[in-house]
């Protein structure tokens, strides 16, 4: 499963000067498609929080963070701040996924489809793994059922490889399961 958004841990600080020999080191965890973008995002956020720019700062470390247990399902809560056509808003969204990167990707695609918010207008404030009891959204809570059972109602039959795809078919498809 390849994800578009990777999670990076970026560590940086201002450059040491005569007045400040050991400036404070700041660490951020953020999502970007690649390392270069992650570094750029880091300076963007850090500029908003502290009086430091990329020109008078240095990057100490950048590491990609991988999911510890990609084979278990978790409920992720994502707090975000996004810019709509009329202003900035905060939002809290919940997703069920196996990895944090997967849920972030779900979030970006959902914001794009539901609110027409492009990815550069979204800032992730916080993410957390939510235990099932504390989930707020019905759409995630409905899958918290150990005896979950539902039929697949609409079954489109696909050719097993894209090579076998044809424009015209001899007969109408049978969509029942």
């Amino acid at each position, binding site marked *: 499963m390849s994800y578009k958004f990777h999670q990076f841990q970026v560590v940086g600080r201002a450059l040491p000067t005569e007045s400040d020999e050991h400036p404070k080191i700041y660490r951020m965890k953020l999502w970007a498609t690649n390392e270069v973008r992650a570094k750029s995002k880091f300076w963007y956020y850090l500029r908003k929080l502290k009086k430091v720019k990329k020109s008078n700062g240095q990057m100490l470390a950048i590491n990609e963070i991988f999911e510890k247990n990609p*084979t278990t*399902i978790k409920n992720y809560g994502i707090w975000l701040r996004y810019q709509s056509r009329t202003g900035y808003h905060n939002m809290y969204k919940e997703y069920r996924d*196996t990895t944090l990167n997967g849920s972030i990707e779900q979030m970006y695609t959902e914001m794009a489809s539901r609110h027409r918010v492009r990815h550069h207008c979204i800032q992730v404030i916080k993410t957390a793994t939510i235990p099932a009891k504390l989930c707020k959204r019905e759409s995630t809570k409905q899958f918290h059922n150990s005896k979950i059972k*539902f*039929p*697949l109602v609409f079954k489109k039959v696909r050719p097993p490889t894209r090579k076998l795809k044809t424009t015209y078919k001899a007969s109408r498809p049978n969509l029942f*399961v």
Partner: protein
Amino acid sequence: MPFKRYVEIGRIALVNYGKDYGKLVVIVDVIDQNRALVDSPDMVRGQMNFKRLTLTDIKIDIKRVPNKKTLIAAMEAADVKNKWENSSWGRKLIVQKKRASLNDFDRFKIMLAKIKKAGVVRQELAKLKKETA
């Protein structure tokens, strides 16, 4: 016409698209409306879209997300392999696979066997015709 095959924990499904095409997998948990957590004795537990799965009639008795050992034991207990290979769907797939992997000599042998079988059938038919005539 009510539904007979449900997506549930323990349902065996056949993968019909993608890298794991043709494998039998167990639905071990449901992530959301479109995806299931799926496991099989010879693969790492992972997520799969329901569009890639075709549900079968076989269901095994497991709890949510069992570990590999429990899963293999449950599959042995339910005798999934034999049930699948004796079902008409399973047998058809085996025959398809066999036919696709024939070499020319095998096809020659099949041709001789078909001719022989047709000869025997025709003899019996001739006998029956003579009795009724």
